[in-house]
């Protein structure tokens, strides 16, 4: 009875073009919906964005129209890219397309770049000139680099001394340079300051390069210059380095005077208080900030990242726009693909709940970052998170045990590969 009355009313109103815009008032939300079927636009088809797009469809039981905008036809993951440097995997295995999102999940995918967001008009402009209206906007644009924070480095210099911290041509360049390095040469990494994507990433990388050198260039040397005084899973990495590579990897931190004062790109020379190093291959991982579109849209604060309501991921600076993944400030969660994908799910649930006028579920949220120290030597860090006083706080977690057996390390290496298969299937496939 009531149902059919409602339906009649809705039909009548829809015919009069009156229905939907008012919903917002009852949601206590300032952003009205213009369509009876809400339209959510997602910017960025990486870990965060692709997950949000899929789960907006899933949690709304396909009642929300979702458009994903991503310039690349295929996406190569950073996770696994260090394994590739060691020769443990190949590029096709690390590359994913958007077919399943389109055909299995009903996401509309546009391969283009968003050039402008108009938060007041609730529209995004694409480089091809098209303009799309949205009811809610989700942004997971990832990072940009502060190149000149390393004196002497620049975007142009990254074509010679790669950062390889966005997967693709940069990864290939580093892959080649490692293989072309002279016997007994020196590989030097300039590590980034906090916060940056994938806290264990640089250290997994030198582990994987050591694995390659051990076989193909056993007298090579690896030097890490780090502006930090400690790093993620440090004791575990160092234990593994010792066990697998002896003294091949030398790590110097802030307290050793390892903050780089000058990088001479042409001569491949790096100076810091500690010493001046001449290297054959240099990998510079510069400090990071939210990607450009987040700045252009006015979503960043003085830190260079985007403050959000950490329960829903709605920007605290622009209503109706949600920022997830590396670009967001997500409490105590590290910047990782796993975290970005978790944000995508939480944010999708929040948007669907808002549109339905449901209470937001209050789940626990998790992150697991595996690192390979060797082909059969894995370590992990895990965290479980919960909202407390408006901040995502870690309530349990920790790292693998020190001094664990070879068997345990081997199992974790297998789980690292299993994690990769599962998360990429969850984000881009079924």
């Amino acid at each position, binding site marked *: 009875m009531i149902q059919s009355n409602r339906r009649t009313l809705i039909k009548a109103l829809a015919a009069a073009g009156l229905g939907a815009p008012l919903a917002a008032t009852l949601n206590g939300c300032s952003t009205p919906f213009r369509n009876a*079927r809400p339209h959510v636009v997602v910017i960025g088809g990486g870990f965060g964005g692709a997950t949000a797009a899929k789960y907006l469809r899933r949690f709304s039981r396909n009642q929300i129209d979702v458009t994903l905008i991503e310039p690349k036809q295929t996406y190569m993951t950073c996770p696994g890219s260090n394994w590739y440097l060691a020769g443990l995997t190949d590029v096709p295995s690390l590359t994913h397309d958007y077919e399943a999102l389109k055909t299995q999940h009903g996401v509309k995918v546009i391969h283009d770049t968003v050039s402008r967001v108009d938060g007041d008009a609730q529209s995004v402009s694409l480089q091809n000139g098209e303009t799309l209206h949205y009811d809610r906007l989700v942004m997971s644009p990832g990072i940009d680099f502060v190149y000149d924070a390393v004196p002497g480095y620049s975007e142009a210099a990254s074509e010679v001394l790669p950062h390889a911290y966005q997967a693709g041509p940069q990864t290939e360049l580093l892959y080649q340079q490692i293989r072309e390095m002279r016997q007994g040469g020196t590989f030097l990494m300039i590590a980034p300051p906090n916060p940056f994507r994938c806290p264990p990433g640089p250290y997994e990388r030198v582990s994987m390069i050591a694995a390659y050198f051990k076989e193909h260039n056993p007298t090579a040397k690896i030097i890490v210059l780090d502006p930090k005084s400690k790093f993620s899973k440090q004791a575990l990495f160092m234990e593994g380095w010792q066990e697998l590579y002896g003294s091949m990897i030398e790590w110097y931190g802030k307290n050793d005077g390892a903050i780089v004062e000058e990088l001479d790109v042409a001569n491949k020379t790096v100076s810091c208080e500690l010493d001046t190093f001449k290297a054959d291959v240099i990998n510079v991982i510069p400090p990071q900030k939210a990607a450009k579109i987040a700045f252009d849209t006015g979503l960043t604060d003085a830190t260079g990242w985007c403050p959000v309501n950490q329960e829903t991921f709605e920007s605290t600076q622009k209503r109706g726009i949600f920022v997830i993944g590396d670009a967001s400030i997500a409490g105590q969660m590290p910047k990782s693909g796993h975290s970005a994908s978790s944000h995508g799910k939480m944010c999708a649930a929040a948007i669907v709940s808002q549109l*339905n006028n449901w209470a937001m579920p209050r789940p626990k949220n998790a992150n697991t970052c595996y690192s390979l120290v060797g082909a059969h030597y894995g370590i992990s860090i*895990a965290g479980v998170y919960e909202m407390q006083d408006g901040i995502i706080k870690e309530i349990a977690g920790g790292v693998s045990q020190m001094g664990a057996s070879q068997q345990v390390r081997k199992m974790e290496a297998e789980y690292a590969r299993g994690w990769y298969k599962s998360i990429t299937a969850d984000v881009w496939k079924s």
Partner: protein
Amino acid sequence: MKTVMMPLSALFVGALSLMPLAAHADVISNAELSATTCFMCHGPEGKYSGGAIPPLAGYPANIMVQQLKDMKSGKRPSTVMQRHLKAYSDEEIEALASYFATLKP
């Protein structure tokens, strides 16, 4: 802004216009949303995705509850699971297990 001007009856119907969305959907439970965070390692919808990590879809709930509680206490050895499970109460473990039992393997 606009909405201030709307008569009450219009506001009422405005809420109803969300019904097509709500009518087809069930509320997202804590267990469902939490379970989706397990998918990252254990496969989408708990389904096998080719790796060494066990899939969870259709796992008998009582067995899963026992195994998870034993991993939480350390009675059953694990690598990363004990570190995760310390965050979950028995009730939450039971809700998660019940949810996974409903998924098709």
